[in-house]
């Protein structure tokens, strides 16, 4: 276990107060195929911790290997043995569904830096659960809104055949006003999309929406660009984040994607974040890094007002969301999910690095579709 004791000042002075005041448990994916996302969330969080100079937070970081049973075991350990006050870090919805309900039932606060499954936003919401990133459907809804704005009449839509994939297509259809030229579910982890691309070519669509996170998106974009189909593509930011754009290369340039964050959002917090992240880690931050950074700062803002042991006061302090977000204005809806602006970005090339640039607003002050089902 890697304990990051940031009570360094106290220890150097002879450790009069050896125990840190607040224990934070971070379970995230640090090994295996999806490690890039977890590493970004962790690094964003650590950067905020370092910049805050706090010595009252003890952070325990563990690797879930993207396996639900490992995540549950680590969460049992953090709650039963380490007795953490606050948990965070999980990247994937299925792991969040395995961990969050039992963690909040045991009285631990959970701040999600990424996953936002609909169950936790609706009927399964909890006073102790806060999502700092988005509800899963949000970026897809924004993609549908952007497609309307761009004047697309007929979309071909595809996503992997698993719950988040079905949510993605549902989210897009919720806002998109045009027709569907085709709707496809691909295999999870699929690497060859020749068959799907052939169907897109034959469908007569005027645009393509896809949600294929991680390596699936890289493969699809490379093959799509090479196929010469050439229809405009729109998708959520997950396939265009800083970590994987370099692997897609020229094939991604010009593609529009939707995100609640971009490195060129114009506010001082964001500018300082981008600069210091690059200085610290030698790479540009991704949206996951920004989410980790915001999660940490939200937590610190609440710690300044109340202790996690005082549940009601700490909950109120979190709800106030009184911190400087990299996204500019940030507030929570009644179900503890963000109400935020989602941008349309375009992939560009800056020198020899591929990155994103904001080209417009897809949805202003957008709340999720499940808030009304949440009874707290």
């Amino acid at each position, binding site marked *: 276990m890697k304990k990051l004791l940031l009570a360094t000042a106290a220890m150097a002075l002879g450790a009069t107060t050896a125990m840190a005041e607040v224990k934070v448990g971070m379970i995230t994916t640090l*090994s*295996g*195929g999806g*490690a*890039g996302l977890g*590493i970004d969330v962790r690094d964003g969080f650590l950067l905020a911790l370092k910049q805050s100079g706090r010595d009252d937070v003890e952070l325990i970081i563990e690797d879930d290997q993207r396996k639900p049973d490992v995540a549950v075991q680590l969460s049992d350990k953090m709650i039963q043995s380490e007795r953490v006050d606050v948990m965070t870090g999980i990247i994937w919805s299925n792991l969040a569904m395995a961990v969050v309900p039992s963690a909040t039932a045991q009285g631990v606060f959970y701040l999600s830096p990424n996953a936002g499954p609909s169950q936790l936003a609706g009927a399964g919401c909890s006073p102790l659960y806060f999502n700092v990133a988005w509800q899963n459907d949000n970026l897809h809804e924004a993609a549908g809104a952007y497609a309307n704005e761009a004047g697309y009449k007929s979309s071909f839509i595809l996503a992997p*055949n698993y719950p988040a994939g*079905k949510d993605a297509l549902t989210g897009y259809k919720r806002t998109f006003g045009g027709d569907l030229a085709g*709707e*496809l*579910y*691909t*295999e999870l*982890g699929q*690497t*060859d999309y*020749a*068959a*799907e691309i*052939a*169907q897109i*070519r*034959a469908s007569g669509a005027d645009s393509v929406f896809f949600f294929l996170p*991680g*390596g*699936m998106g*890289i*493969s699809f974009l*490379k*093959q799509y660009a*090479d*196929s*010469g189909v050439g229809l405009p593509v729109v998708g959520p930011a997950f396939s265009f984040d800083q*970590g*994987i754009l*370099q*692997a*897609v*290369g*020229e094939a991604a340039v010009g593609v529009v994607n939707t995100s609640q964050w971009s490195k060129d959002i114009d506010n001082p917090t964001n500018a300082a974040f981008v600069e210091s992240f690059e200085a610290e880690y030698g790479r540009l931050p991704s949206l996951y890094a920004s989410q980790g950074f915001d999660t940490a700062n939200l937590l610190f803002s609440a710690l300044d007002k109340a202790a996690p042991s005082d549940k009601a006061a700490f909950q109120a302090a979190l709800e106030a969301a009184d911190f400087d977000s990299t996204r500019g204005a940030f507030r929570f809806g009644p179900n503890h999910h963000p109400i935020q602006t989602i941008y349309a970005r375009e992939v560009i090339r800056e020198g020899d690095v591929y990155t994103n640039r904001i080209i417009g607003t897809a949805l202003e002050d957008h709340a999720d579709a499940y808030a009304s089902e949440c009874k707290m």
Partner: protein
Amino acid sequence: MSLILIIEQVLNGLQSGVMLFLMAAGLTLIFGVMGLINLAHGSLYMIGAFAAAAVAGFTGSFALALVGALAAAAAAGAIIEITVIRRLYASDHLDQVLATFALILIFSEGTRWVFGSFPLFLEIPPYLAGPVTLPGGIAYPKYRLALIVAGLAVGALLWFLIERTRMGIRIRAGENDREMIAALGVDISRLYTLVFALGAALAGLAGALVGAIQSVQVGMGEPVLILAFVVIVIGGIGSLKGAFLGALLVGLTDTLGGIFLPELFKLFTDPATAQSAGASLASMSIYILMSLVLIWRPTGLFGAPA
């Protein structure tokens, strides 16, 4: 569904089958000659792709990248054969499964250690980029056509090597009776290292070729490994001819199943259910194919009877 679309899908199936053949050929050779189950074959595929991406990033040349992939995978293959695999020939399949499972762990996380957690970039060379129009007005990516041609060429080369050269005679003799050829003065351990390196090089080549249109990332080898096993089991383990036919069969089933099963289901249920159910069945289709073949012929299409 138009005829053009069907032809295009058949080409896609062929292309994926031909690449699978490169993987399966090495696997089946290694099993046929040495009697070894190599779960780490997918790691060699990954090494090929990573080496190609590294060389291409450094030199900018796709041809050099392929050479790099062949060299790196063959070298990795030779090294593990000499240090680990060699000790396993006399063991039962269980030990082989465990040892090569351990090699997967080492290679996967080792690669992440060296190259980091983010996918690498490997690009189609400019002279093969974009689509080409085939007779009948079918627009098809040049690169995928090139893959079909390259795969068939390597297959022909392999056939020539095994059937028409001195080394091929030794390999075939090794399959039949290893004591006999050792008695005839062939250095059997060198032959085994060579065969293993050859199989590894084929896997590395497949990784590099496919890496240009897919994501070069840790763990890319395992799904292909399972498919390659399905291929050689369908074809009959140890049979190159079987691996070739099995690869085409699996490639076509996988590609066409994903297209036609949902269409078929639409005749019975509403489109959304049909799409989802069809996609589910399609993802199981090659495994269903494999169990049907094995139930019909317990040692595969061209396997020697048990």
